[in-house]
């Protein structure tokens, strides 16, 4: 379904998307501070500037559709509907976190909404999503699976194995490449020698490339491709060009970046322009912004107050049922 219409009602979907963009942005901005202040440990990869991809793709998914994410997975999780409480509690390593404090940023997951997990292994989500798509197909549940991956991940062999497999089995799989131009500290152009459009064509995989900073464009392309997929057309690949505003991870000094990179387009500004053009009052946006901020602060307060992750519970969750194991 298209995001845009006229007036506030006609733009309910776009307003929801705008709110999601804001949620992701503000969550990550807060994480950035929490990390800088030492409250959040570990490797934190922020997707600031890339939010429209998560939000646009998710607008084409139902709650039971599944997705496999990456190391830069906050946006995927939040756009799919991960509750803020569980999200922040996880990053703060609380027992109330979505992963009970054992996974952290690189592993946020919420099975209840089909979010099969962020992943610390570049490319791994490709095969997990392909397997999930296989399950959907065999269970004939009408669902689809989505694999998000970066443009650096294009170098992994699983792209090929899963592309071939999904094309062969006509799996209901949407491949979403988040093309921010960077693979860690290196430009992707120094690592990838193949053309993804031609590549897709070789496998008979439907391909679209769009401006990943425009949530409306992403949503439209996602709607088109998921439509194809749901009608049994097999896998499709959507490349969303975007920009990584921050370092590869928090703490990255980014010496490798030049100061004359063109200023990126802000997905939130772009979405705001769409809303303005459709006649939605700025006041409405200000209200949303205020609500988002307060919800986030509440989640952080709740996370801080929550009990810390528990070692005994962790040890008990290695296997599903308690089994013989080496106790500490």
């Amino acid at each position: 379904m298209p995001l845009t219409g006229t007036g506030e009602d006609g733009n309910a979907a776009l307003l929801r998307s705008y709110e999601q963009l804001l949620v992701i942005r503000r969550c990550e901005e807060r994480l950035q501070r929490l990390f800088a202040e030492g409250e959040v440990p570990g490797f934190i990869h922020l997707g600031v500037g890339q939010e429209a991809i998560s939000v646009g793709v998710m607008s084409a998914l139902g709650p039971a559709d599944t997705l496999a994410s990456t190391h830069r997975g906050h946006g995927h999780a939040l756009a799919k509907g991960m509750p803020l409480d569980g999200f922040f509690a996880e990053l703060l390593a609380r027992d109330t976190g979505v992963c009970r404090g054992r996974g952290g940023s690189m592993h946020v997951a919420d099975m209840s909404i089909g979010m099969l997990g962020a992943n610390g292994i570049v490319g791994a989500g490709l095969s997990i999503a392909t397997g999930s798509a296989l399950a959907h197909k065999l269970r004939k549940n009408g669902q689809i699976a989505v694999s998000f991956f970066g443009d650096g991940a294009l170098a992994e062999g699983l792209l090929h194995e899963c592309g071939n497999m999904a094309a062969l089995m006509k799996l209901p799989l949407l491949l979403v490449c988040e093309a921010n131009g960077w693979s860690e500290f290196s430009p992707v152009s120094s690592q990838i020698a193949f053309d993804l459009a031609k590549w897709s064509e070789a496998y008979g995989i439907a391909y679209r490339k769009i401006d990943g900073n425009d949530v409306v464009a992403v949503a439209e392309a996602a709607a088109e491709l998921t439509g194809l997929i749901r009608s049994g057309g097999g896998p499709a690949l959507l490349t969303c060009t975007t920009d990584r505003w921050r370092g590869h991870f928090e703490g990255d000094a980014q010496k490798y970046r030049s100061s004359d990179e063109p200023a990126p387009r802000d997905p939130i500004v772009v979405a705001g322009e769409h809303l303005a053009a459709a006649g939605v009052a700025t006041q409405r946006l200000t209200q949303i912004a205020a609500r988002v901020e307060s919800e986030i602060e509440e989640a952080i307060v709740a996370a801080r107050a929550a009990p810390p992750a528990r070692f005994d519970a962790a040890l008990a969750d290695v296997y599903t049922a308690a089994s013989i194991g080496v106790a500490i």
Partner: protein
Amino acid sequence: MAQLRYGAAIGQALADAMQDDPTVVIMGEDIAGAGGSFGITRGLLDKFGPERVIDTPISEAAIAGMAVGAAMSGLKPVLEIMFMDFTTLAMDAMVNQAAKARFMFGAQVSVPMVLRTPHGGGLSAGPQHSQCLEAWFAHVPGLKVVCPSGPANAYGLLRAAIADPDPVVFVEHKGLYAMRDEVPEVLAPIPLGQAAVVRSGEHVTVVAYGAAVALAMQTAEQLASESISVEVIDLQTIQPWDEAAVLASLAKTGHLVVVHEAVEAFGVGAEIAARMAELGFSYLKGPIVRVGAPFMPVPFSAELEATYRPSVSRLIAAVRKALGKE
């Protein structure tokens, strides 16, 4: 008592599991139309159709990862990796994904998948088609590792592995596929994590699994004629293994030998020996001796391979050493 071959028992377990549970699917290279490289899955395609018996391209990394994703999405995939040597290509899926998912996602999900794969030599299959790599998987919290020694426990353990909510690496010995033995009239699952005392004895405990169990039994038979009474334990499950059973036997005999076909160094036997050198130290009346493959790749030459693989004579020597009767 009925008779069944080891390979057929595995096939039967797959068929029965698929019959009982529509979410069980099997996948692998040439397992459908061709019935598998060792014929284990023969007949299943006809019975259950191509949606549940899936031939895949030669993409081990992908199919293992797919099994994880499918297991997280409502199926119970049983994946065949044609030779255990090829699990080298599936390690990320098994170790970083399957093994960790339950733990790292805060117990939101289990990964009910089985990776079936044959290990072991005896076919002159050479260094890349004969390895026993089960110790790797046993070192990874979150995976279970099983290795049956005969038709009866091949059936029972595989049923339990498929029913198990966690990822299981089910290791078959390719040299045993043709082995024929008695099985109970009514086949049933055998719980994971439990060893079986397959021969009771007084003087020395021999712990074995897979094809080495038969060796241990022959050794016990031979040594009985010298009035050495050997207790043989079939581990059945390697992870989590049945520490209590081994400890109880050691408490009785005071002497321990562990035998397997895998390379001795850093193999499964090391863990059993190490654990008993701690928990069972007070029972130990002599050195713990291991019998495994020497520190070399599996050679192609049939003659060399015969020397390479554990034998009754090496096991007898080990038992003597453990008993201080060298």
